[in-house]
């Protein structure tokens, strides 16, 4: 981009909001929008990747700044990056859900002393159950978490939901809301010092466009 900062842009649900934001900052995203397979756009100073890789590239300095979800940052607390701004878009809820009308979680806790929970977010899930004083057995899955309670493998799930449609379609209901997650602007700690001017200008312009 113009100020010489390299931006890590997340592919997937946050990509649209991210590219819209970059457009308002005067960064040309047309090539990124029209090219689905290319990953590196040197002219625009943009690299694209899955959201969970954004903190990795930014922490290592391969990108100066990046946009990713708060869920990703909560799950990777050992990546040293600055969390500069809440960008507001991409709003999702991190929730505990289980089969509708089924008290499998309470029942498991009462009789077996622990709940079994499937998730892609083991750190967030274990912190939530620890904070609420419940023993938990976490089962880490990579694909559709909704399947896990339906097959009886677990009593509940911890997952991210935007509208709740997928949960409803699979006959699951939200039992607890853990936290709200939105898109965040993050920065490499060294770039935050050595490219301070460009970074401050960018943050100021985003703050302005938000207010």
């Amino acid at each position, binding site marked *: 981009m113009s100020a010489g900062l390299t931006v890590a842009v997340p592919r997937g649900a946050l990509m649209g909001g991210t590219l819209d934001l970059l457009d308002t900052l005067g960064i040309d995203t047309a090539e990124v929008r029209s090219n689905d397979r290319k990953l590196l756009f040197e002219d625009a100073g943009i690299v694209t990747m899955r959201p969970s890789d954004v903190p990795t590239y930014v922490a290592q*300095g391969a990108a100066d700044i990046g946009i990713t979800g708060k869920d990703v940052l909560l799950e990777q607390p*050992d990546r*040293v990056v*600055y*969390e500069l701004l809440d960008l507001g878009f991409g709003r999702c809820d991190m929730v505990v859900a289980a089969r509708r009308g089924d008290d499998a979680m309470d029942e498991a806790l009462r009789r077996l002393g622990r709940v079994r929970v499937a998730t892609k977010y083991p750190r967030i899930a274990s912190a939530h159950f620890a904070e609420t004083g419940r023993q938990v057995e976490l089962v880490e899955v990579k694909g559709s978490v909704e399947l896990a309670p339906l097959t009886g493998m677990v009593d509940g799930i911890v997952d991210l939901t935007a509208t709740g449609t997928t949960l409803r379609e699979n006959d699951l209901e939200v039992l607890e809301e853990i936290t709200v997650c939105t898109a965040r602007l993050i920065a490499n700690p*060294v770039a935050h*010092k*050595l490219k301070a001017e460009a970074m*401050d200008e960018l943050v100021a312009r985003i703050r302005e466009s938000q207010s």
Partner: protein
Amino acid sequence: MIHPIPPGTRDVLPDEMREQRAITDGLHATFAAAGYGEVWTPTLEYEEVLGTSAGASGYRLFDDQGDVLALRSDMTLPIARLAATRYPDAEPPLRLCYFGHAYRAARRGSGQATEFLQAGVELLGVAGPEGEAEVISVLLEGLDAAGLARHRVGLGDSALYRELLANLEVPAEHHADLLARLAGKDLVGLEMRVSQLGLPDSAGRLLSRLPELRGGPEMLERAHEVAGPALDGLARLYATLEDKGVADRVILDLGLVRHMTYYTGAVYEVYDPAVGFTLGGGGRYDELVGRFGSPRAACGFALDVQRVHVARAAEEGLR
């Protein structure tokens, strides 16, 4: 047949070793010329001496007596112990330097070294900006001698935020949470928590935007008007660095916080534009040597030699 070595450790072969040796030779010559005597301390120490919070690496074992030994996580704690026990009555100042491996457990796949070579100095018995300015000068000279050309030092004050919280009469029960968010670089959470304190606008802005205050002397002057006497120490140190002619490589950074908990005053970090990670850092730790029974002012720095080497190679790539 695979004979692995533990993740985060490495073998060093002659080509790399030759370049690394040139770096440590350059550093050593600088330290020696500045009057710093080289010392060596044991890699393993008693865990109760290092302390579990700051000193231990996460690697520990039992010796034949059943005592718990730990690998050191940095060289500052062992040298504080050495200074207090071997030089309890020495005339200050005491100038010591070291080249030694330290250890920190890291998550697999993080790309972090668990064993790393540190080179650094400790200056004991010199209080105030003269001590820090000497150490920062030696640090900058050492990096020149190690072959770097574009390095910068970020300079902050580890006591600053705490002092501002006290001056602005923020209730003590909020301090730990705010300091943790600052240390975690969570500026979104920091701003949110500060806004909930119901402070006047200018005070709230100072506390939530402090990490944005980084730059040269103009920034410090502007911040001085808002933050007041809490910045006197940093201003004095910067003036001393200007007198020594090294301030042009120093970036003032009011939100700078270091990972180690023993710092009591100035803190600094080393950056190079060619790489995205810090090359080392240090600060003032006036209360640490007293923990071993011989209180005295102290400050120092440590460089990660492998990281300096990577930065030097990266700088060459940019030329």
